[in-house]
């Protein structure tokens, strides 16, 4: 843990969710009390607890600088990146640590993200191009065209939105906010050739139409991406596409 200068330690009480499906019938909470200097993040505190008090507490981490998306978890009930959350920024000295909801638990805060990645795959998250059009150098793209992508390419796939989505609580086959935002990112890319007809693939109750616009994902996103906006934008695009198709207004290559 990094040492910050000129400050005294504050005491915190950590209540940490524990569950090991091999040995525990049901989840329980462990309590740890420790002092931490100003500037300590939740991740640093957890690593300290792991190192000095209980080395079996499981949670994921990697970059500790809010770009790898490993350490999404619930801190005092809110889905956050542990590495970016300062202890000081929490109200009070009680810190409740729990795994992200909507996924099965492998152990403690480590959840099985398979459904999240499966949803990601369903939107075909790669640039769709016609091989024969590939230029020798770069595709030209204006700064404004890149700027349009900026709000969405920052997604770090941490699943905080997925864990916060109330719809996923009862509709486990729903694509979820991150996958749809990813689809929007590609469909907004001037180089992508998939066209609006691609939306037929996500035109289902588990696809674009599952969202109840409760906006939890927007609050949860540590990168200020607004998944709900992308869901609504793609719905509109789909409706326009269907309308044009119905009235035979589509050009040959849009069908």
């Amino acid at each position, binding site marked *: 843990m*990094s*040492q*910050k*200068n000129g400050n005294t330690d504050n005491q915190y009480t950590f209540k940490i969710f524990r569950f*090991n*499906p*091999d*040995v525990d019938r049901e989840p329980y909470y462990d309590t740890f009390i420790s002092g931490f200097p100003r*500037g300590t993040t939740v991740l640093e505190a957890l*690593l300290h607890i*792991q*190192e*000095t008090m*209980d*080395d*079996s*507490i*499981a949670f*994921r*981490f*990697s*970059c*500790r*600088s*809010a*770009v*790898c*998306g*490993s350490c999404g978890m619930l801190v005092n009930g809110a889905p956050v990146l542990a590495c*970016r959350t300062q202890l000081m920024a929490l109200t009070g000295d009680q810190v409740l640590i729990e795994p992200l909801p909507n996924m099965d638990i*492998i*152990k*403690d805060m*480590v959840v*099985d*993200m398979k459904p999240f990645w499966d949803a990601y*795959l369903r939107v*075909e*998250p*790669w*640039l769709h*191009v016609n091989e024969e059009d590939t230029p*020798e*150098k*770069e*595709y*030209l*793209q*204006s*700064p404004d*065209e*890149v700027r349009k*992508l900026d709000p969405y*390419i*920052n997604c*770090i*796939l941490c699943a905080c939105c997925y864990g916060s989505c109330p719809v996923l609580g009862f509709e486990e086959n729903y694509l979820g906010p991150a996958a749809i935002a990813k689809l929007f990112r590609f469909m907004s*890319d001037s*180089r*992508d050739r998939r066209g609006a007809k691609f939306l037929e693939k996500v035109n289902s109750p588990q696809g674009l139409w599952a969202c109840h616009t409760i906006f939890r994902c927007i609050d949860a996103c540590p990168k200020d991406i607004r998944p709900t906006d992308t869901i609504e934008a793609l719905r509109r695009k789909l409706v326009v596409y269907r309308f044009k198709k119905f009235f035979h207004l589509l050009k040959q290559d849009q069908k």
Partner: protein
Amino acid sequence: MISHDVLVIGAGLAGLRAAVGVSQKYDTAVLTKVHPVRSHSVAAQGGMNAALANVEGSKDDTTEKHAFDTVKGSDYLADQPAVKVMCEEAPGLVYELEHFGCPWSRLEDGRIAQRPFGGAGYPRCCYASDRTGHMALHTLYEKAVELGVRFLEEWFVLSLAVENDRIHGVVAMELATGKVEVFGAKTVVLATGGYGRIFSRSSNALINTGSGIALAYEAGVPIEDMEFVQFHPTTLYGTNILMSEGARGEGGYLVNNRGERFMEKYASSAMELAPRDIVARSIQTEINEGRGFNDEYVHLDLRHLGREKIVERLPGIREIAIDFAGIEPIDEPIPVQPGQHYSMGGIATDVKGATNVKGLFAAGECACVSVHGANRLGGNSLLDTTVFGKLAGEAVKEYLDSGAESPDAKILHSAFKRQEKSIQEIFSRESKGETPGGILTEMRETVFHKCGVFREKNTLEEAYSKIRELQERYCKVAIQNITTRRYNPGLMNVLELKGMLEMAELIVAGAIAREECRGAHWRTDFPVRDDKNWLKHTMAVCSQDGPVFRYTDVEITDYEPKERQY
């Protein structure tokens, strides 16, 4: 037994690029201890060098000039034919990433933008704002999933099965269950990244333990030039999160406690954009001589760039400064200090990524080709990972095309038994024994403070005996919780610590032996570069009593060594 033609270990940029290249032709699996997008490559900020000559001011840039800057930056320790290959491949790889979807920042005319970077004669660093690694890694992962590459996520490789200088596969542990499994393979590509976390101050991800280099070392592969460790001049005081060189590339100043732009004294023409080794030493000198703040850091001042430029070009830097130091760079200077950043050394390979073990290849930060020599230039590592990831993939295909033998089940089985036994042994230790934490902390402090920016015989020797002592203590180190193998971080810490201590030993021993100053290796007791005796690569080979060193010649084909001036 599970068996593949190709096993790629690691899913950062190097591993992904290798896998993308071979997976369409040969049965390939990628084993990685974290999900691919959690790999350290995601944290790269500033950019990737390629002589595209896209911008005003780089019109007459060429791949030769890129090669020259790289060789000069390396303090002439890089192998020049390899550097040439890398620089010639560079534009192709930037375009390839673009074709795969990478959202590079653009010029008004739609071409890829480039910014100035340290040690480069032209603005040739291609960037995606200051989140280049994130964009490049996600893009390559997207390409890999499009191609249907098979990933085995959260599998930790424990050892390589090598016999008679040939690879047969690997032994690995699944984190979710703790199950140990053996994977047969005709070829293995190590792309496991660097060892930054053996230093107390490091810009690296917490998972960067250098375990892949240790795997190769233990399997008898020579490890090259480990004493060359890059210290990045500007890591955020406190957490040592990187403040990209891009911040200085965009015009940021370094300022001491007297308000002076002190780089004037050390590199009067390149100023803040001198190569990293020089800037890191300059900052450390200012701090050591009392011109730092709180004797710990100097200021990186961006204020004069103005809000618009900071928000547009350096949004990631700004976000980090705000989130992790409570500092708004638009209004206040950022406190920075040198921290470990990059491993120039690593697994010795040829220009196609081949090691001395048949069928075993390495690419990316874990490898040493050598293209960075004694000091890497900023923006050349993302380049290195993609170029040599690609070339290693091609070399694997050639090797398999010529009919490689299948792995030997007996050899694999005994490799498996050895690992299973050693894990059982760890679980059987007294759980009240010393845990890895103390050893880790002592190692990190020792290596950073005694084998850091400035080095000297006595302290290096103290560091060496400390590491030997820690290695002895390691033999008895225990985990507290022995009830379960399932996702057991205590077990992971014990397993990773072994290789970390080996890496620390190689770095310190290599630094003791090399009695000169070259690039990032600065011996205050031997304050000059000594081409007569030391224009040589260090090769460390594992033996019963620790590393044995031999030295090989540097390949000098185009540029004769000269004194570096900036």
